[in-house]
């Protein structure tokens, strides 16, 4: 039967990959603010390091950070199908229930963050149980992502696990493959959380010092965990991933330097750049591991330039309108 064939790419794979990596980096930036921020605020709160009003000020930001994390996470999830084809979906099905629990857990996290934020507004106090619940949820989501995406890089593992159990209650047993990477991500989140705490709380010496400490320590520990993980990936030195990593490390150091000088905007730009490089390196590692079974450029190219142009125009307009609304919001304060 002569029906349209859906196995095509409607834009060059390089373009789709750039969009995927860019939106994924933005998602990570927001997610790291949230995860790292929650960890830092909790530690500070439990140690009675800060006064409650300062903590409450940060906690009020968390629901917005959660909204940004989710919103910015949708686009990379969409492009995933085009960049890695069937790999991630297949792995997600094998871990179906764990995967489906992610949005359910995210609902709980979101409400917990609103609860603590609204309580802070009302009473000026921090709700530690709500923050702990949110942290537990965020850790579950991040670990599930690491488990599924790691499984997605190993087609044989997906086949083997599926052959044994089709119920969707299968957790990726190859923990050695992703625990270090997950740890690297958590430590990286603490580093980025440190950046945000320092930048937002720049007027409070305690907040800035705390942010600075977490940024530095987070970067150092994330580098150790990341290096340990990379040693488990054979053939890495022969790919462009290594250059992505080198540039990423340089940009991180630059960001730290500017952070110390309280040049937060420039520091943030470099931080985003370093995250983009890390995401690129991760992408290259994934392609390296999938090299025997999948080549992203093997799919037929049938352009849809009209719809793509519509997307691009709407994207630019949406960003401009968001900037305009932020200006409206801050105009009153000025």
């Amino acid at each position, binding site marked *: *039967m002569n*029906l*349209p*064939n*859906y196995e095509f*790419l*409607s*834009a060059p794979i390089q373009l789709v990959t750039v969009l995927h990596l860019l939106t994924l980096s933005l998602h990570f930036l927001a997610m790291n603010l949230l995860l790292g921020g929650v960890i830092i605020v909790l530690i500070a709160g439990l140690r009675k390091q800060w006064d409650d009003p300062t903590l409450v000020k940060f906690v009020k930001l968390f629901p*917005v950070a959660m*909204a940004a994390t*989710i*919103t*910015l996470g*949708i*686009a990379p*999830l*969409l*492009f995933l*199908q*085009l960049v890695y084809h*069937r790999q991630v*979906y*297949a792995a*997600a*099905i*094998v871990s*179906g*229930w764990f*995967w*489906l629990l992610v*949005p*359910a857990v*995210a*609902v709980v996290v*979101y*409400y917990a963050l*609103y609860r603590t934020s609204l309580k802070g507004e009302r009473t000026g106090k921090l709700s530690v149980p709500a923050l702990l619940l949110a942290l537990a949820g965020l850790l579950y989501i991040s670990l599930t992502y690491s488990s599924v995406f790691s499984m997605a890089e190993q087609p044989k593992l*997906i086949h083997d696990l*599926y*052959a044994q159990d*089709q*119920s*969707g209650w299968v957790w990726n047993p190859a923990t050695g493959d992703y625990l270090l990477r997950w740890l690297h991500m958590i430590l990286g989140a603490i580093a980025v959380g440190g950046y945000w705490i320092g930048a937002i709380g720049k007027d409070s010496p305690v907040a800035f010092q705390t942010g600075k400490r977490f940024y530095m320590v987070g970067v150092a520990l994330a580098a150790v965990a990341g290096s340990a993980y990379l040693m488990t990936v054979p053939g890495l030195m022969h790919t462009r991933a290594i250059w992505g990593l080198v540039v990423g490390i340089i940009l991180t150091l630059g960001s730290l330097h500017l952070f110390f000088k309280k040049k937060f905007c420039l520091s943030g730009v470099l931080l985003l750049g370093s995250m983009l490089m890390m995401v690129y390196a991760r992408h290259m590692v994934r392609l390296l591991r999938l090299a025997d079974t999948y080549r992203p450029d093997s799919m037929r190219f049938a352009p849809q330039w*009209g*719809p*793509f142009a*519509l*997307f691009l125009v*709407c*994207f630019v307009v*949406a*960003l401009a*309108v*968001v900037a305009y*609304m932020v200006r*409206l*919001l801050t*105009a*009153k*304060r000025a």
Partner: protein
Amino acid sequence: MMYPFWDVTTGYGILMACIAIVHVFISHFAIGGGLYLVVTEQMARRHNDEPTLAFLQKLAKFFVLVTLVAGVLTGVGIWFIIGLLNPLATEALIHNYVWGWATEWTFFVGEIAAALIYYYGWNKMAAKAHIIVGWIYFIFAWLSLVIINGILTFMLTPGKWLATGNFWDGFFNPTYWPGVIMRTGVCVMLAGLYALLVASRQAAGEFKARIVRYSVTWGLFGLALTTVVQRWYLSAILATLTTKVLPGPILALRSAAWLAIVIGGLLMLAWMLARRLPVIVAALLMLSGLAWFGSFESFRESVRKPYVITGYIYGNGVEVAKTDKYKKEGYLAQITYRTGDDGADLFRHACRSCHTLDGYRPLKPAFDGTDQKFIASIVRGAHLLNANMPPFFGTAAEADQIAAYIYKRIDQRPLDQIYPAADLGRQAFTIRCAKCHKPGTAHDKSKSFTGQSTDDLNGMLDNLPELAEGMPAYTGNATERAALVAYLQSLGKVAK
């Protein structure tokens, strides 16, 4: 068949409905509620109406908590669940409509940013700026409906796209425009319903009466618009359907019509009780609205059967374009993820999306007391059954493998040992005949049994495969046969 199969005990339909119905119920409110907030705020500010502004601030908080949390995450949940339940259809939708989804995402970014700024800026922003943000929110939210509606209606009525494969042909399909207008009406109706829930918690009095009647007007206007446009929408669907409309979707549609009357009645009641509207009436309205949406979405999903994308991909992930390949090579050759149990793999990919063995749409009671040969005949003739079932394109040997898989899991005692003698004839008819010849349906043969002798009916049972294409041979034992013949005679007498 290129993906693993998620073999959950819960029915796929239930899982999908649980997430999707909650999502559409909130997401339509997210659009209508935005319009309600900004229009009402604009009027309230013009008249310096402080009580209304205070009410709107409460509503905005409720609005943000419901839409940004539950609304957004159930939306993400739909992405997750469709990827698990029908990954191939999801893949086809993404490859064809990635820029449609991506455009919708840009509107979503604007919508979320506007919602947050609108909420947090309530006491901080200048009135004019706040209203501008409110309008921006509504425009982005409605534009996301405009895009999503194109993809949703494409799945139901792909129109010329099936021939051209052109993005816009599929997007502006035959049900696109009625879909947009009808859903806009639903958004307005839900804005009224949700606002009534918040209004019902106000203290009894003049202000409550005013805000309740105002919200009832929204509800009634939205309901009227939805009802009028729904006829256009339905006629557009019926004009393009290539399959018969079954009792299921018709029942869902009737339920939706009755629930619309209930909603209208409750709105009138709310109008009359405006000064003291109890929470229970507002809650009943919400429940009726949810049930209405459930019925409507159930109609939309079931009228599309046996397809998930009409004319393109069947509900079980079988691709229409590959039917020749399936017939030639069989299903097993196409299944990428195998478990070593071919019968189970075939059952999963051919049947399991819609049927469980003993839970949702169970097959066990449908085949208890029968045999492998009978089950295999039913599998091969699935498209002839009294339901819009996807045809089975696999080989005869594969149909036998599915039958063997099911047979192993059913009650293998003969029917006369499972059911009491008094009920045996009816049960035998239900299991062996009513899958196609249910009394009162298009293929009801009751009249043809009128005046038939026992010998005539036994003769008919001996030659079933010769009567029509796909009729399974009769394989029951003598006791069951005698009871069935007696039951057929009783049907003939009733039909006379």
